[in-house]
């Protein structure tokens, strides 16, 4: 378009041309054909772990890895090492043994008796009577007076042997031996029942009862057998002195369902033995430890119908074969009631001593210790009521569970731990975009003790190639504690671990790592006893700063 004006058309024309030209020149300014962007190095901060271990988690880890005595939560949240053991106790057939009953008697003709027989008319019956008395001496328990034995099994045999030339008949009765219907045992024999001069009868005593007599303090547990012998004069035979008639009854292989009586005041053993008590394993070195509390409990179960009493426990601590401590207690005796009616209703009572009434705290140590224990109860501390005699059933028992609790109220001057772990850090090459990284570990220690840790990485030749840090790290910073030994607030530990590929290359050669840890309870130097409770915990946070490098 050409625009002209009377005065300035020419200049306007050139102005338009110049404007268009400028615009064209401007359009020639173009962006670069290729762009170069420097390496892209963003820093990404990301949380990795945020977790909280309560003491149960920590102890589970400890139990799995350092083989400690199990730790449990007590009432009120107090935590304690807990050691328990079920005692073997005493079984009924071990404590009370029914002796065999064996009694024998012999009738021998003397001259007078022989003549007396001979002068009687033939067929005359001469009656002779005798009583056999057997005393069932009970050695276990000694001095036991038995009023009734309900037999689960047993055998009775009665034997008569005769060398008399005259006919002999007879009968025997044992009034202390009752069959299941309540009738006393008896038997009768005639002369023609002898075989080769001997007559014998046996009886299975299962379900029978023996009711011994205890007429006085000298004659106890008596079983009587009354027998009568009838000698019938044989005219064809002349009795001569020396002929005899022998009788014997035996009750043996006796096992009871139940025994009643007065069993005396013998001991019933709960346990006799030794055990090694080791709170922590040999990888720990501990010194300056004071235990603030400890307790020992015997939970006694009495399935005997016998009252008993626990008045002492023999407990000795032995180190290196030398008795270093013996238990002394001012605790009163414990009366153990009898089972009620049968062994199916045992009585249960507990006996506890602690640091207030004994020297129990000195019995335990963080060092391995052998503990020797002897515990028993004594039967019938009180006179037995005849209307309520002692009884022992065949399945009866007396036993106890031993438990020792050592609350984690302690002072630890120094606890060292050292272990060597097999380790392989085969880091992958894949993360090429990761230039380096900084791993941040944050620990919130709610326990009343501190732990310093040092980790040294070794190669296969044992040479140290790297370490977690130049100096031991107080990973569990020791918190301040109040007058009760509880942490005032959680102590904080923050540490950054830096990794780059040079370090990763070094760590590839790691073959094992030496872990060393040092611990002490808060204010241990001041003698402070700290308490570890279930509500204490360890918070752990792990974050990473990833220094990425995106090469263009």
């Amino acid at each position, binding site marked *: 378009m050409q625009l002209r004006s009377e005065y300035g058309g020419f200049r306007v024309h050139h102005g338009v041309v110049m404007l268009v030209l400028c615009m064209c020149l401007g359009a020639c300014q173009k962006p670069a054909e290729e762009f*170069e962007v420097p390496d892209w190095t963003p820093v990404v901060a990301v949380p990795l772990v945020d977790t909280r271990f309560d003491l149960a988690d920590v102890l589970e880890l400890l139990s799995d890895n350092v083989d400690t005595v199990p730790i449990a939560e007590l009432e009120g949240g107090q935590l304690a090492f807990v050691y328990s053991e079920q005692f073997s106790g005493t079984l009924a057939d071990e404590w009370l043994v029914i002796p065999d009953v064996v009694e024998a008697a012999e009738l021998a003709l003397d001259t007078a008796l022989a003549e007396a027989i001979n002068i009687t008319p033939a067929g005359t019956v001469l009656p002779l009577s005798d009583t056999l008395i057997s005393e069932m001496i009970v050695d276990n328990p000694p001095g036991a007076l038995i009023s009734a034995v309900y037999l689960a099994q047993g055998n009775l045999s009665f034997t008569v042997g005769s060398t008399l030339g005259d006919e002999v008949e007879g009968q025997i009765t044992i009034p202390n031996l009752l069959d299941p219907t309540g009738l006393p045992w008896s038997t009768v024999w005639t002369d023609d029942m002898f075989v080769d001069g001997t007559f014998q009868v046996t009886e299975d005593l299962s379900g029978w009862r023996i009711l011994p007599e205890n007429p006085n303090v000298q004659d106890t547990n008596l079983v009587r057998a009354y027998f009568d012998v009838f000698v019938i004069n044989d005219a064809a035979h002349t009795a001569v002195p020396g002929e005899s008639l022998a009788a014997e009854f035996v009750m043996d292989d006796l096992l009871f369902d139940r025994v009643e009586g007065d069993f005396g005041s013998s001991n019933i053993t709960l346990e006799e033995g030794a055990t090694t008590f080791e709170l922590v394993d040999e990888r720990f070195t501990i010194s300056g430890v004071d235990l603030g509390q400890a307790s020992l409990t015997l939970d006694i179960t009495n399935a005997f119908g016998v009252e008993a009493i626990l008045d002492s426990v023999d407990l000795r601590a032995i180190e290196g074969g030398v008795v270093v401590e013996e238990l002394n207690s001012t605790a009163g005796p414990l009366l153990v009631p009898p089972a009620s009616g049968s062994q199916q209703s045992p009585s249960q009572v507990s006996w506890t001593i602690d640091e207030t009434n004994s020297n129990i705290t000195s019995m335990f140590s963080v060092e391995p210790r052998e503990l020797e224990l002897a515990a028993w109860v004594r039967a019938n501390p009180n006179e037995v009521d005849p209307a309520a005699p002692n009884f022992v059933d065949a399945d009866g028992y007396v036993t106890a569970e031993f438990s020792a609790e050592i609350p984690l109220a302690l002072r630890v001057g120094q606890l060292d731990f050292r272990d060597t772990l097999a380790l392989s850090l085969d880091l992958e090459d894949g993360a090429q975009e990761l230039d380096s990284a900084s791993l941040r570990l944050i620990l919130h220690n709610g326990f009343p003790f501190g732990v310093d840790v040092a980790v040294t990485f070794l190669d296969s030749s044992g040479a140290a190639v790297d370490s977690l840090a130049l100096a031991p790290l107080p990973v569990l910073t020791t918190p301040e504690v109040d007058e009760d030994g509880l942490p005032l607030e959680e102590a904080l530990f923050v540490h950054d671990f830096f990794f780059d590929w040079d370090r990763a290359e070094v760590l590839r050669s790691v073959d094992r790592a030496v872990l060393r840890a040092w611990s002490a309870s808060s204010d241990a130097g001041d003698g402070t006893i700290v308490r570890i409770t279930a509500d204490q915990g360890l918070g752990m946070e792990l974050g990473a700063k990833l220094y990425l490098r995106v090469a263009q």
Partner: protein
Amino acid sequence: MGGIRLKVAVSVMMLSSLSSGLRAQLGPMEVLPEWGQAGWSNPAILHPSGSHILLGGLSGFQVEVDHSGPRYVDFISADGLVDPMALLERMDPVETVGVRSEVPLISLGFREKERFEFRLRSRVVAEQKFSYDRDLFDIAWRGNGHPDNIGRPISFSDFGLHSQAYLDHGLSVGAMAKEDKLWLGWGIHLLNGLGAFEIEQFDAVWTTDTLDYSWDLQGGMVVHSAGLDLDSLLEGGELELPTDSGMPETLGAGVAFDYGFRWKLTPKVELEGSIEGRGGLRWLESLSRKEVDPSSFVLEGIDLVEVFDGADSLQLDSLQLLFEDWQTEMLDSLSDAFSVQTAPGAAAAFDTRIRETWRFGIRFRPHESVEISALAYRQFSFGRVREGGLFGLTYRFRGNVTVHAQAQFHNGDWLWGSGLSLRGGPIRFSASARHVPGLLRPLEAGHWQGQAGLSFDIGYIQKQKKRRKNDLGTGKGMWH
């Protein structure tokens, strides 16, 4: 992966620089009557021709792109070396990209000398504003673990997208109110809404803890639209606009008004002022509203105790599965915390404003052909206010040539604009640029804009000075 990220990064940077076009300021089109649009900016300004007709996009189609961020040369060297840190340093905390396009359908104007002018116009307007935070680039380039970022609430809360399109049917008049002294103008716009999308509220703050590096994410959002199926968009569906037989439906309606005056203090000094586009639209049809209730989410890392409690073993495979489960749980928790919700019942109608401009200025004519102008203005657009000032020098030659140069101070920058209007017979050609350096050296400029158009002008060709003596400024005003 690195290459893809590089391309994305460069693309974003290039977009930032290439879209560094004009800001929504004033130019010759709005200031000088010869361009045929000034009467719509200040209805008291009368067109120099007796009547004028603009038909279709050729007559005045314009697209304005406004990016408030750094220029290309601010962070890219001539040989293409990109300096991301320079980009960050030259960015304000919040930058915006505004796009506004106007497609005139028809515009008519009839003037009775200096007494009265009547105008009619229909146009299609589409405008949008996208706001983003500098932290978005900062976090991408330096990461959340950078010392300058860790522990600092990294906010994306200024992120926003406002967009609307509407038909504007306008009627405008300008008339002499006092004989050769005062001209007043008034206009009304009947607005037919075609579609809108608005992020009414957007809060997103990411804080990385300096101690344990945990992440604290807080956010909420309210979005509503007219004519867009947000459910489909959220599910990755295609953008669908409601149409009826190929013609866009009217989804909203509204009205806006223009007010203006021109006061000739002396034959050589004239004051002017106007309010343009005061009004808005109410969107009533095809509405959607989505909300994310204000919520927070804290990422603190894996709870090892919980994970190990659920582990059958501590073998690597099982731990990997547990870690994947944890990841899934975290993502589910994150989705639950910031779940997109649809308000029950029909979405409520919502209102939007159209761009509104206030201006006040003075024109001084020391010579019949020379005009010196100074204007101050304030613009309201999608809740943001911008202010600026303009100094112009105009030379009119024989009534058919107008040359204009202007210096405009806006948002801390000086823009150097110019324009040329030529009338030959009934044809008027006009061209302008609000910032000429932006055309000459586009990579060094932060603003770029150009305009050209044709119109049919009839009558009132400005005569030579000696011939048109006493032609203007005679007679009574329209309302006297």
